[in-house]
């Protein structure tokens, strides 16, 4: 069962603007019966470039129908310049959000709008972004389209690439390629996210000693406590609490909450701290 918002349910059960506009000024069509969803968008545009009416016909699931209806509601009364700026995220926002797996329904709306505007200008309507190399052959999605989706939507996982573009949702053969593209886009933009190389034992020991001496001990000393590094066994840091800490009832909290957290943040995330017995 999908967790649809009330707005999605409302626009699915009682869709606004369903139907055709005879002699429409612009028609945009994306998807097909074979693909599993399709949207045909009709616009009536005034001479000064204002969208006077918008209607849709959709084959697809509840959120595809609701997304289409939402798009037509958003378009009515807008100038073409304003309409051009509508993205799939605006459609999803109008609906109060869509389940992640259904984001491609809003993408279909954006694509139909693009096709419509191209049609109005009398330009050849490309079925989708055809520049670049086709990565997902099942859905005909190019690397350019995938890169754009990653950048525009802040995507950080291959799963989300599929949710937004359908790429990888067919046979799955291109998933490795999607990973490469994702890594490539993220690698240049969010370098912090890349995994650091694992430390050697000596590096880890030096770093642990440094953080204990420079960060942890000064802080504990403020409360009259102290700490001593006893041993290091792989990722296990064995310490002994001294001074006020030795008899403090919340010493366990100090170990897990402060000492371990600090070491995990500043040395390595996998570190475990325990007290020498």
């Amino acid at each position: 069962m999908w967790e649809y918002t009330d707005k999605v349910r409302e626009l699915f059960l009682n869709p606004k603007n369903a139907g055709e506009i005879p002699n429409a000024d612009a028609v945009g069509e994306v998807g097909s019966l074979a693909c599993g969803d399709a949207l045909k968008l009709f616009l009536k545009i005034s001479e000064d470039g204002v969208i006077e009416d918008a209607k849709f016909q959709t084959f697809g699931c509840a959120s595809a129908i609701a997304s289409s209806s939402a798009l037509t509601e958003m378009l009515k009364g807008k100038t073409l310049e304003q309409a051009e700026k509508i993205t799939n995220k605006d459609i999803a926002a109008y609906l109060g959000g869509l389940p992640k797996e259904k984001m491609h329904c809003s993408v279909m709306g954006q694509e139909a709008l693009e096709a419509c505007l191209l049609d109005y200008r009398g330009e050849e309507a490309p079925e989708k972004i055809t520049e670049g190399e086709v990565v997902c052959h099942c859905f005909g999605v190019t690397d350019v389209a995938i890169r754009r989706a990653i950048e525009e939507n802040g995507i950080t996982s291959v799963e989300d690439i599929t949710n937004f573009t359908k790429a990888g949702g067919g046979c799955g053969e291109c998933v490795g390629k999607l990973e490469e593209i994702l890594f490539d886009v993220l690698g240049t933009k969010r370098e912090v996210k890349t995994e650091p190389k694992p430390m050697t034992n000596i590096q880890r020991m030096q770093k642990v000693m440094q953080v204990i001496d420079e960060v942890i001990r000064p802080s504990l000393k403020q409360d009259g406590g102290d700490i001593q590094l006893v041993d290091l066994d792989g990722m296990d840091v064995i310490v002994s609490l001294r001074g006020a800490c030795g008899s403090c009832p919340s010493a366990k909290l100090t170990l897990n909450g402060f000492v371990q957290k600090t070491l995990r943040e500043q040395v390595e995330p996998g570190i475990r701290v325990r007290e020498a017995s």
Partner: protein
Amino acid sequence: MKTLYFDNNATTMVAPEVLEEMLPFFSEMYGNPSSMHLFGGQVGKHLTLARQRVAQGLGCEPDEIIFTACGTESDNTAFYAATMAQPMSKHIVTTKVEHPAVLNVVQRLERHGYDVTTLGTDSQGRLDLDELRDSLREDTALVSVMYANNETGVVYPLPEIAEIVKARGILLHTDAVQAVGKVPFRLSELPLDFLALSGHKLHAPKGVGALFVRRGTPFRTFMLGGHQEHGRRAGTENTAGIVALGKAVELATAHIEDENTRVRALRDRLEQGLLAAIPDTRLNGHPDERLPNTSNLSFKYVEGEAILLMMDQHGICASSGSACTSGSLEPSHVLRAMGVPFTFAHGSIRFSLSRYNTVEEVDMVLDVMPQIIARLRELSPFKKDQENVPPACTC
């Protein structure tokens, strides 16, 4: 609003008689059957009775029944036992239309170096037994063929399959989760080695299943721990669930005639009614070699999830073989294996009945379905008279 439940292949209502028998095991009979004291020990007698009832229903011996937590666990156990007991045999035969409880286990074995032969089906969902015969090898560890398909209800000829497979001395497993209580069979006359069943598909609660393991079939324990189930499935028994399963199998055996007459007639009334009232509708699966309770229909030009949500507004519960998720608009693997055209596959709805359905309920569904389909077809850009218009998918 009254719930019109037509999704019995997904799960079933717990039968009142079953509920009544299981309830004491949550209250005054909460003892552990492994305990030394009488309070716990007395529960053991009820497990013995449940085991006898299941064995009687299936036509096997009580000690050939292992209680598990679900059909999936039973399937996993059969594969584990067959592969671990025959480490030199690295070939598996199964079908394209199995439940994920089998398909995903097979995929993992494949990643671990097993050779897998996956048998296809014809357009009505039937297997080619010659293909099965040709697929068997010296190193085949297990053949796994479901007894009846959960989506289409197509029933596979297990007696013939068993004859072919056992003639080669190869182990045979069947996922009979959908078949028990609907397809009459006796394991005493059906020489397969493993059979999986699930409680909640036959009016017992969720969380209990069973695996039949024929005496003499090599076995390795999947779940290790205590000595329960003679050391073949560790873990404190789900006493209430097992008692319920015993009663449910007993009832299923008593009602199997009813399933194949009255329930079948209800299913046919629904199916014929929908096919007659709604144009561009087709039946998926063989019309006769099929479970008496299942009808899988495709409505052209509309999408399954949208149909289901509209039906939900009328309290009608059913399922769809269309999975509009994750951008993957792939219709069900079962319909694809049968070569159901994409134009139909996306609009498939599975109705699955039980002995609790009534003719009034069927007629209520017949009353609203034509409007629902007509409404969605009105929204759809595809119409019968523009058949040639939709562009092909780049798939």
